[in-house]
């Protein structure tokens, strides 16, 4: 159990302790510890190469070589992969083969436990894509495909959504729709969200909490506190700039 700002007990969904990751001797994540509670909308910000995708890969069991512990629903993810049935993952801009012969409905039904067509319809309704259910996935725009992938993540009624920079390369209209859907899922459906993003304005607008990552975690807390702290914002932009220079 955990105590939030208003002093109410609520359940921890994710608990990460002392997470460190090396890629051939180079530290990518260094001693990261934080948690995600029920109902949290956590924006993870950080420059390119800050370790956001690596963090997600560890959380989703796509990378198993790391130090430290990651617990979902109180259980170490090294012990069981069952937690994944309660986690919805929306990847970076999807790479869909234009000629892949599957309808949107079929793409949603590929997930485990999703033979129930009612669940598929409900998930599509939540992202306003139910009218296109029988279209081929390759015929949709990237923004629409990304909404389909949210629906896909929702089919198994997850407790938490993990989104890895989901709106990269998507037009403003679809980005706004996407954010509106995320907001509704968090407030109405009470789904916790962890969302990696470059877009500080969007994070400020949507996320209730912020984790600022650049190999180490140099801020984790209430979103308003981060965005009203000029020192912190300055530190963030300096680190981003350093990373940018380093990459070029």
């Amino acid at each position, binding site marked *: 159990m955990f105590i939030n700002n208003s002093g109410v007990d609520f359940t921890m969904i994710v608990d990460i302790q002392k997470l460190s990751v090396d890629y051939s001797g180079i530290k990518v994540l260094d001693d990261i510890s934080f948690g995600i509670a029920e109902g949290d909308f956590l924006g993870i910000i950080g420059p390119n190469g800050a370790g956001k995708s690596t963090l997600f890969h560890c959380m*989703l*069991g*796509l990378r198993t070589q790391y130090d430290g512990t990651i617990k979902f629903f109180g259980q170490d993810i090294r012990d069981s*992969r*069952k937690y*994944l*049935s309660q*986690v919805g*993952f929306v*990847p970076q801009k*999807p*790479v869909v*083969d*234009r*000629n*892949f*012969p*599957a*309808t949107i409905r*079929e*793409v949603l*039904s*590929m*997930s*485990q436990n999703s033979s129930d067509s009612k669940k598929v319809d409900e998930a599509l309704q939540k992202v306003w894509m139910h009218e*296109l259910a*029988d*279209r*081929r996935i*390759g*015929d*949709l*725009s990237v923004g*629409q495909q990304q909404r389909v*992938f949210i629906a*896909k993540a929702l089919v198994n009624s997850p407790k938490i959504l*993990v989104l890895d920079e989901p709106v990269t390369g998507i037009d403003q209209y679809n980005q706004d729709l996407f954010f509106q859907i995320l907001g509704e899922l968090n407030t109405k459906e009470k789904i916790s969200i962890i969302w990696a993003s470059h877009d500080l304005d969007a994070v400020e607008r949507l996320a209730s909490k912020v984790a600022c990552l650049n190999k180490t975690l140099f801020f984790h807390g209430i979103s308003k506190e981060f965005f009203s702290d000029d020192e912190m914002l300055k530190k963030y932009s300096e680190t981003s700039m350093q990373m940018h220079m380093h990459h070029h």
Partner: protein
Amino acid sequence: MTFEAVSYESIPHALISGIAISLLCSVVGLFLVLRKFSLFGDALAHSAFGGVAFGLFIGIYPLWIACAVAILSALGLSKIRQKFDISGDAIVAILLSTGLGAGVILVSLTEDFEFHDIEEFLFGSAIVDTQNVVTILALAGAILTILFFTYKKILYSTFSEEQAKASGIPVEKMSYLLITMAGVTVVISMQLVGVLLISALFVLPNVSAMLYARSFKQTVILSMLFAVSATVSGIIMSYQFEIAQAGCIVLVAAAIFVGSLVAKGSGLVKTAGILAKRA
């Protein structure tokens, strides 16, 4: 006769086993085509040829040895591919040439070797043995049953490996299962179309179906329909004109593909996603 035509007596056996094999090839082949692994069937068949030659060399009925060799070499190379990050097409080339190279050496070492011993594996033959037909039906039934229960997981792994893994699907196990099923499919299909023409049954019906179909289910059904039509007409043509059965089957499958291209190109058929209005 090097290239065998279907005789009147062998028509029932050829048709029954041919239909089972074409159903199997079209479904297993679809996953390979979608994984951009269209030539994998060819590579498996060539490594199976190495197994056939090994069987002849040690004097054991070669098909089961071919099956084991094809599956083990494909699984081994898949592991190597993952570990050393080698591209899929390179793996296909390695499997294909090594299998054929080993086969040629073993054939040259086999005493009292006659070309007739391997011709049925190279070019296919009219299946007349009832025992063979029963084996083909049993194996095709088993693989189609396994596919019925696992196709969603294999399809998901094919669609997006990353998302499938993140959903808890054992992607690697599904990949090994598909390779194993493809290996068995290749070995039983070798008897119908032979090593050299096998990928035609894996690829042509699927590519033709994908020109028309909107969904995965439609693709599977159409591909099965095309594969069975090609096989049945190929067998009948082979009997009617006394020409090689394998060649007839492959050419009918190719004709269906060309016909589909023409139908699509001329706008005769309102086809799948490619021509559908963008949402």
